[in-house]
Each structure stands twice: as structure tokens, then as C-alpha cells.
């Protein structure tokens, strides 16, 4: 799980071109939108694309997406739940 979260942080920084942000600057449980990283609605679409490209997971329900994209922790938990045991 820790490796996955670390990998996710690197992928988020790269996908969203978060200049001056390092993986260690992102708290596992900090909100990605609003006060945390300050991401916006276009970033949420980019994160959906990231899940599809990197983990082959397609999020069909937008309401489900809101829960998944709350934090790095919630994204990692979701990815892990979709991976074969």
C-alpha cells in the first residue's frame, strides 16, 4: 500500500504538471481538491484518465469518482480493491 501511494503521488505530479511540488509534500489524507492541493474540475478529469491509463480502471459513475478522488489514500484504496487478489 505504501509503495502504491508513493507511486500515485509521482504520477499525479507528472500528470497535472504540479511544478514545485514533491511527492513528500502531499499528505496521504489531505484533500486533493479545494484547500489541499487546490485542484479543480479539469484536474478531476485528468485523474480519471490517469486511473484508466495506468491502472486500467474506468470509473463510470461520477458520484463514485468524487469519493475515490478525495485523497491519495482513497485513490490507493480504490486501486487496491480493483486489483486481483
Amino acid at each position: 500500500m505504501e509503495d502504491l501511494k508513493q507511486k500515485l503521488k509521482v504520477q499525479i505530479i507528472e500528470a497535472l504538471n504540479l511544478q514545485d511540488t514533491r511527492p513528500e509534500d502531499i499528505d496521504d489524507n489531505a484533500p486533493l481538491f479545494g484547500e489541499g492541493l487546490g485542484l479543480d474540475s479539469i484536474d478531476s478529469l485528468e485523474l480519471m484518465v490517469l486511473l484508466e491509463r495506468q491502472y486500467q480502471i474506468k470509473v463510470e459513475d461520477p458520484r463514485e469518482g468524487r469519493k475515490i478522488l478525495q485523497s491519495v489514500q482513497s485513490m490507493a484504496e480504490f486501486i487496491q480493491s480493483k486489483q486481483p487478489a
Partner: protein
Amino acid sequence: MKGKCYIQGMAAITPQHTFDGDLMAQPMVVTHGNMLSCAEPDYKSFIAPNSLRRMTRVLKMGLTASLKCLQDSGIAVPGAIVTGTGKGSLQDTERFIKEIRDYQEKALNPTPFIQSTYNAVNGLIALQQKCTQYNNTFVHRGFSFEHALLDSMLLLHEGTADVLTGAFDEITPEHFFIKGRIGHWKKETISNDKLYEHPSPGTISGEGAVFFALTPAVTAQSYAQIGGLQMLYKPSPEKLHAALPEFLQQHGLQAADIDLVLTGENADTNHAHYYEILKGYPQLPFKHLSGDYETVGAFAMWLAAQILKHQQLPSQWFPMLQQQPAKLRNILIYNHFFGEQHTFMLLHAV
């Protein structure tokens, strides 16, 4: 057109150092190679980091030039935003098309698609300045900027208080390669300061983002008056020869009244014959400074307005200049885009 049109503010990001500093003291930027790229400013002074991270080059160039222009003019929210672009954001277009191929039309990133649309720069300016007024982008190849200018002049004539008018285009290595295959560029590699020593088929490529704040009334700060504009699409040699004196006559001028012609001469022997209409006029070319692209007319207008405002030429940019013109009241710009879209623009000192 009866209404008057003055340049109240302007800004330019081009292959020369045109964004800030004393124009008359800036040395010519010499590029070895047939693709001139812009000297880009520090965008962080104009655009928030959170917005900047998503923007590609031409968006940053266009937005920054427009904001600097508004600063220069003292206008915060213009009465209209009208621009022209030949290609829009090429970087985003190329990225989007490559991703369609790489990901088999699935899992496509929305950002390059959104930003590849031609009106993306206008949208960014409107958002940044909270401007909900008229907003339009013209995409008409070599007439893109000229149509934006014509629309702006019509808006001023109809009573709009001020208009932000601009043009932006970029070149990428991929697009340079594609246009090279249809013969746009010279086969031999040259540097821009030696352009006119190489008359041969093709020219050198360029790019730029140039914005103007236009108003119907003159002030002490005004750079110049835009006196006239005419566009001719694929004119016959006879029509082009007749068009120039007619254009001047329409504006109450004769050939002798023109103090300087800035010509789009670009050492391309395929289209050099068009410039024969300027025989006898005092003239200087400008494309060794900018390269050639669809909206280069905006750079020519910026240059003419600077010359009229300063009442002198930046002689370090024009090594072919024998002596400064005795007077600088009326400048004519004649340009064409690869022989198809021809434009006359007339500027007066204020």
C-alpha cells in the same frame, strides 16, 4: 470607414526582445536555422502558478502579451476581445492527435483538446479579466489578424469604447517539418540576419503573440492612428498594381506622402514579384526579425506603431538602412502570405 482608430497600448512577444526594455537599444536576435522562436518572458509575473502549469507555449504567450497590453493602455476590462490566429495551439493539437493514436481513441486527456480550440486564448483573457463582452477569434490563414482588426474597427465605429485586438501563432518542429514538405521553407540553412542574401524558393518560419488596445479617441499616450486596411485575395498582377494607388487615394494620400513601407519581403523567389508594386517607395523588410507565419501582419503593425511613436527606426535591426527617413508621418505595410492573402495597412503618426 469614417470612425477613427488609435493604438492606445500594445505588447509583443516575438523572436526579438520586444516585450520590455528600450526597443531602440535591443540588439537583433540572430538565430542560425530556419525556424525562429520567441524570446519568452517570465510568465510568473502575469499568470498564477496554478493556471500556468496547464498552459502550453502559445497560450502563455498570448495571455501574457494581452495582459501586458492592457497594463500599457490602462484599460482593465476591454469592451471586446478580438483575435486572429492561423493555427491556434499547435502543441495541444499535436498532443491530442498523438494521444488519439497511442490510446486507440480511449482514455483521452481533456486538457489538450480544450486548449487546442482556436478561441482558448480569448477564453483565458476573458476569465482572467472577468470580461463578459464580445469575444471572437478569426481563423482565416493569412487574413486572420486582418479580419480581427477589421472587426475591431467596425466595433469602434459602432460605439464600443475600446477593443483588445491581437494575434498569436506558434511553430513546432513537427509543423515546421510538415510545411517544409510543401516548400514553405528554404532548403539551405541560413541565419535570419542573412535572409535577404539568400533569394531562393521558400523562406524562414516564425511565430509571435502581439496585442493592441484600440480606442476611437486619441490621447497623449497613443502610439499611432490606424488609417486604413485593405485585403485582396489572390489578386491578379494587374489588380494588385492598380490597388495600391487606389488605396492611398481613398485615404487622401499619394505615393510621395508615404515616408516608409514595411514590406513582407522574405527572400522567397516564388513570390518576390509581388513586391514590384513598391518600386520607387522608400521601403524596409521586416521578416528577418520575425520569420513568416499567418499573423505576422500584427508584428508589422506593432513595429510601425513603435517607429511612429519614437519617430525613429531601431537602426540596429535594419542593417540595410542607409539613413533615417527625414520624416515619419505615414507608414504603409504591404504583406502577403505565400502569394494568397495580400494586405495593405496604413498607419499615421499622432
